[in-house]
């Protein structure tokens, strides 16, 4: 098929997300960062909103959509499904009661691509036991896919981005490097891109691309299951703000500082990040459908790792939490682990 989903957009996946500072400015000016009533347990800057309905029932709502990361429509649909549901799984909630789809595409995009995207999205949700109960589709110059998910939980069992405590250890469940890997995926399809990549061994590019796509379509649901078994202080998934941006959110909301001394990256991505100028080693490269960053007390860390192992979830210790005022420090000589 000649129509390439990634060719018709200038930014891809969570890279199309508005920068944090711009979003903060918009919300401030629009008056959407005001205090909420007691029933609102989480609003802006958390991964999902949380509203308490009764003493033992909270409703979680999240909305997420973006531009294509890949040209294969069913894989693209799966990536979007993984990304939408992640915002609820990240709060340690496994029960997503339904999902609505959001799709937009240009008039010249072949219908079979739209069908493929929806099929991939639906297949992913079905495998997670989530019904897709509706949605909305429009014409738009850029293809867009995503959805809105609703989850339910006992309010006492939800893990927020806030709550990290001094002395906590930090674990991340997927290696970083989606942006450089997927840039290589796109560039190797173009003559100019192939020239830029000529010094990079093909098997290294294959490893990076395969690792990135596998990571993006891997659900964070087993991470939520593990978090239900062990007390985690705080968690956030790592997407468009990059590891450092999401960690800054956690640090600011928790009124602590976060220190990273080790970063796991997808095999092959260090050379690609250097080639393309992505700030991978400072934790600033944007991720899409990334892993979950968890902050947990030292005494429970082994139990968490055991629960993750049981579910075959990859995990990497990346740093710790210290006293502070919301800063994130990535060690100058941070250890890079290719996974």
């Amino acid at each position, binding site marked *: 098929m000649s129509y390439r989903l990634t060719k018709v957009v*200038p*930014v891809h996946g969570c890279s199309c997300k508005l920068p944090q500072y711009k979003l903060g400015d918009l919300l401030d000016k629009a008056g959407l960062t005001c205090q909420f009533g007691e029933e609102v347990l989480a609003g802006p800057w958390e991964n999902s909103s949380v509203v308490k309905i009764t003493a033992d029932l909270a409703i979680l709502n999240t909305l997420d959509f973006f531009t294509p990361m890949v040209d294969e429509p069913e894989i693209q649909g799966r990536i979007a499904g993984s990304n939408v549901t992640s915002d609820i799984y990240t709060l340690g909630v496994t029960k997503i009661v339904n999902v609505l789809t959001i799709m937009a595409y240009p008039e010249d995009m072949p219908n079979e691509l739209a069908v493929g995207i929806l099929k991939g999205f639906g297949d992913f949700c079905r495998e997670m036991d989530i019904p897709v109960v509706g949605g909305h589709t429009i014409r738009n110059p850029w293809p867009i896919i995503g959805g809105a998910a609703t989850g339910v939980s006992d309010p006492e069992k939800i893990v927020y981005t806030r709550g990290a405590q001094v002395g906590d250890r930090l674990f991340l469940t997927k290696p970083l490097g989606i942006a*450089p890997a997927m*840039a290589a995926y796109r*560039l190797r399809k173009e003559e*100019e*891109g192939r020239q*830029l990549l000529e010094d990079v061994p093909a098997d290294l590019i294959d490893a990076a691309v395969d690792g990135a796509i596998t990571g993006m379509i891997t659900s964070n649901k087993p991470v939520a299951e593990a978090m239900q078994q062990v007390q985690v202080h705080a968690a956030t998934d790592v997407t468009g703000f990059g590891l450092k941006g999401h960690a800054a959110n956690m640090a600011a909301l928790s009124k602590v500082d976060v220190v990273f001394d080790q970063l796991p990256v997808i095999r092959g991505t260090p050379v690609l990040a250097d*080639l*393309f*100028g*992505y*700030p991978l080693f*400072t934790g600033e490269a944007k991720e899409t459908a990334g892993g979950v960053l968890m902050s947990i007390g030292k005494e429970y860390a082994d139990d968490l790792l055991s629960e993750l192992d049981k579910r075959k979830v990859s995990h990497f210790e990346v740093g710790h939490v210290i006293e502070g005022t919301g800063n994130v420090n990535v060690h100058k000589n941070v250890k890079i682990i290719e996974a």
Partner: protein
Amino acid sequence: MKFETLNVTGKMCPIPVALTKRKLDSMDVGQLLQVVGEGDLEFDNIQRWTKNKGHEIIDAKRPSSEFILLIKKC
């Protein structure tokens, strides 16, 4: 003021940064590179990469949707 010029107009990320890097790699310390291009993302990304790598941005102009950056290799 003598400088070399790189035009990245019409090229999508990450090609503008990659070409800027490749060009600077071929230049001597102290030499100047003018990068001409377009787009917010490309403008921000080239500047961020330049600062991260310790090069100096001498001038950054944004007369319209296009941009002109003058970078000193350090």
